[in-house]
């Protein structure tokens, strides 16, 4: 296992990219720690698969270097990089048995037979595939097949990282949970570096130590699930993570006040006046009903009862606003809301603005 350094990586599929739009992946500079689990999260076409392929060596980036530990692997082909990958659809060698599948990468690397047997047995044990070790791989279910493709990575001791490309897409919903938690356990026990591509925020948040959120070919934020939730660095992160997503309202910001549609909103901190388009973002969880001073009138569109809480979908003026409300309290006919001042973030041109010290 080793640390992965993405040294000013950028990639364009065009021979001579000119504008920003020519890049499928805009410049990324990241150091990913050894033994951590990273999730690349973003909608389809955001460049996450391109980034994954750059790490696995299927694509050579047009700019920048990829470094595993201390070794520059930018120009090395996939097979020389010592990585393992689990694909969207289970890739297994279906004429082989489960055990032969697992032994395959070791055989290709001319590992002694005794060593192969030992490691295959270990891996089968690890993945709980014992009962079907001698069976042909093609008769197995999708989740078992995915375990085999994972196993082909785990069986090698020298793997730098294991890459997952939306590995749960074809798995039945109830097996998804099980497989994901098994994966998580394996990661805790064996501590390999994991890079996990997904467009499912729950998968990313429950799985990874650090989530890398991507949007339109750009990495917009890297952080722990809590950071992404509390301090989204980009309004997109706010939208994309959380259900419902963060409320974003155009506002004029001055000092510790923001003005939204003629109503003043208290901010927890002090901000310099901002040029350009400014917005405030507040999560529905930090919106509560209150008709005291500084509250905003909200027109209610619908109320959804989730069970543990209710979601109020409404609007302030033309701007949509959602609130997560506790059960049991009646919603008045013309409700007013206030925001938790400490939880209101300020954005300029979609990027988070830091408060003045």
């Amino acid at each position: 296992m080793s640390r992965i350094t993405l040294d000013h990586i950028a990639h364009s599929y065009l021979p001579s990219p000119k504008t920003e739009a020519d890049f499928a992946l805009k410049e990324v500079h990241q150091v990913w720690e050894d033994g951590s689990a990273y999730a690349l999260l973003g909608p389809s076409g955001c460049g996450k698969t391109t980034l994954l392929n750059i790490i696995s060596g299927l694509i050579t980036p047009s700019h920048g270097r990829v470094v595993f530990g201390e070794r520059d692997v930018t120009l090395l082909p996939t097979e020389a990089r010592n990585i393992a990958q689990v694909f969207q659809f289970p890739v297994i060698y279906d004429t082989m048995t489960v055990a032969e599948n697992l032994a395959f990468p070791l055989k290709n690397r001319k590992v002694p037979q005794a060593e192969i047997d030992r490691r295959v047995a270990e891996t089968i044990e690890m993945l709980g595939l014992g009962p079907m070790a001698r069976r042909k791989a093609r008769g197995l279910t999708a989740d078992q097949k995915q375990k085999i493709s994972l196993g082909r990575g785990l069986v090698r001791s020298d793997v730098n990282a294991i890459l997952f490309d939306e590995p749960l897409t074809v798995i039945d919903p109830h097996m998804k949970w099980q497989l994901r938690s098994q994966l998580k356990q394996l990661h805790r026990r064996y501590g390999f570096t994991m890079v996990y591509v997904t467009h499912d925020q729950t998968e990313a948040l429950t799985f990874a130590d650090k989530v890398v959120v991507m949007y339109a070919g750009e990495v917009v934020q890297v952080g722990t699930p809590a950071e992404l939730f509390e301090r989204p660095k980009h309004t997109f992160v706010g939208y994309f993570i959380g259900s419902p997503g963060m409320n974003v309202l155009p506002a004029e910001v001055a000092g510790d006040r923001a003005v939204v549609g003629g109503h003043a909103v208290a901010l927890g901190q002090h901000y310099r006046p901002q040029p350009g388009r400014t917005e405030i973002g507040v999560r529905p969880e930090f919106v509560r009903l209150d008709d005291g001073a500084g509250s905003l009138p909200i027109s209610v569109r619908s109320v959804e009862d989730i069970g543990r809480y209710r979601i109020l979908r409404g609007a302030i003026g033309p701007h949509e606003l959602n609130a997560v409300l506790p059960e049991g309290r009646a919603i008045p006919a013309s409700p007013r809301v206030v925001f938790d001042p400490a939880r209101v973030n300020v954005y300029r041109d979609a990027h988070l603005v830091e408060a003045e010290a």
Partner: protein
Amino acid sequence: MEKTWNNKAWFMVLPVLLLVAFSAVIPLMTVVNYSVQDTFGNNEFFWAGTEWFEEVLSSSRFHDALLRTIAFSAIILAIEIPLGILIALTMPRKGWGVPVCLVLMSLPLLIPWNVVGTIWQLFGRTDIGLLGRMLTGLGIDYNYGRNPFDAWATIIVMDVWHWTSLVVLLCYAGLVSIPEAYYQAAKIDGASRWSVFRFIELPKMNRVLQIAILLRFMDSFMIYTEPFVVTGGGPGSATTFLSIDLVKTAVGQFDLGPAAAMSIIYFMIILLLSWVFFTVTTQAGEDRS
């Protein structure tokens, strides 16, 4: 796919059934009738019992033709299947090369069979043919009309020319259906080119290869027109395959009885082979699911 029981589906099959019955069952019954009788023309038939069968089964002419046909099919399969796989593997997968390859390679398949024969007859002639001229020029004593070995070689090369593309196209269809992820995974697992072929490409081509072997075997087993045009079954009877012999007996000599008996034996062999093949493929298919 789960199918529902519905005996009314018979009505949808009925037109096919009637048409094929008209084209296949009536002629087959006629053949059976002929095979036990003797005729001197004018639709006058005399009971002959199993005489013709005995005659055909004990005739060395029939044995030789059968052996030649089997040998021909075996050689054809041994050459065309590996060659077809090799060409399919080396064909481009994208770009302008794909339609060019596909169109040019399918060309021989669409040429009427006697024209195929004519092409090779002309091509192989030592006086006006390019191949014959070249081989003679190289000092090889080549003459498909006189030398049995040359006749066989010409017919085999002709069949390779004519039909290998079918195998290529089938294998190619199997190959392009393999998702890219398989090749990526193989790279990551450090698989050699041979392993990729053995464990990814070959299993994925399995089904189309079965079709290819079936079609090539059956079609080579009943080959008639092409070798007939090139060699007329000669020199001597060196290239007289079963169907050539059959047509000679039936149409040339108008020996209805022996021809009919031969037809039935021929058909029985075909039936047995198709059944074995059909069973093997469907069983393999069920095993997979």
